[in-house]
């Protein structure tokens, strides 16, 4: 009985710590998700549906790419493949978190924490000395509402904001992508080459007559798999830490 009480207390502590660490994440999420809500409303998808998408998907790059596919009238297969390739990094993160969890953690808690595997929540979860699902749930308890509310507010205000503000906010997601990929690229030549090669390859697919007909979703898949595959083959990444 005593043991159980102690476990409960530790779980509560982990949850509270996760929630605290999740606050800055939630604020950042709100800002980025706001631009998703705006983009979705500009594409004719209402605030409710963009918030619903955000709640269920919890993935910035995946949602923006999915939006492109939906608007372009792509098939469900293309939609699923786009999500698979763009969100494949979560697979690596889940592998890593799974290795970090105690073997005694059952399947049910794993089902419940899987939804929270995002770049940022993964980063703080992986940094724990001792990871329990409660910590990740704590972070999710603030980050998921932040992400969902951002899309809702962005979707509502997106309809009201003047065009020049929409134009300015349209750049936000790309700024975020650059802030994720460039700092590691500046320190690791292989990553830099991957980044430049992917941009060049995508530019070729976008601007070459004939290749232009490839939809954005498939173009991203082709570029990502090709460039990451060649890089892994020519230059295996050996460093232990990978996030």
């Amino acid at each position: 009985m005593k043991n159980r009480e102690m476990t409960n207390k530790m779980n509560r502590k982990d949850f509270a710590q996760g929630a605290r660490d999740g606050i800055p994440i939630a604020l950042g999420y709100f800002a980025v998700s706001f631009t998703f809500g705006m983009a979705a409303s500009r594409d004719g998808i209402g605030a409710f549906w963009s918030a619903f998408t955000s709640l269920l998907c919890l993935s910035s790059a995946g949602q923006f790419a999915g939006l492109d596919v939906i608007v372009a009238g792509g098939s469900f297969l293309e939609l699923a493949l786009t999500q698979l390739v763009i969100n494949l990094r979560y697979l690596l993160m889940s592998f890593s978190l799974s290795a970090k969890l105690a073997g005694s953690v059952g399947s049910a808690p794993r089902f419940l924490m899987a939804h929270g595997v995002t770049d940022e929540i993964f980063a703080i979860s992986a940094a724990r000395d001792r990871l329990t699902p409660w910590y990740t749930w704590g972070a999710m308890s603030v980050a998921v509402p932040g992400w969902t509310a951002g899309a809702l507010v962005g979707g509502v205000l997106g309809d009201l904001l003047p065009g020049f503000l929409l134009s300015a906010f349209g750049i936000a997601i790309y700024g975020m992508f650059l802030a994720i990929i460039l700092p590691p690229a500046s320190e690791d030549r292989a990553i830099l080459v991957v980044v430049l090669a992917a941009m060049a390859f995508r530019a070729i697919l976008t601007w070459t007559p004939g290749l232009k007909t490839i939809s954005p979703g498939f173009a991203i898949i082709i570029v990502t798999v090709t460039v990451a595959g060649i890089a892994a083959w020519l230059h295996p990444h050996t460093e232990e830490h990978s996030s």
Partner: protein
Amino acid sequence: MNRSHLLLSILVMAGTTYLIRLLPLVLFRKEIKSPFVRSFLFYIPFACLASMTFPEILYATDYTASAIAAFAVAVFLALKKKSLPTVALAGCLTVFIVERLLVLL
């Protein structure tokens, strides 16, 4: 847009994404050994986000000039290791300022 098609699309996106996150957690409880697979998974986010950024960023705003300016500012700040919201907002601000100037000219 057709409601039920939209709902199905969202469920396809959400289901695929959830499975990617779930399967390693419930099925594989030990580390990946293959250096190729590990490297491939490691490089994916960089290749993917880079291919989503350029050249799409050039078409994200009303004027190509404002997009190029914001692209340059964002690259500069990202290389300076500024935080995500800082880089994103600086990009927005650059677009806003450049487009106000273009309208004045």
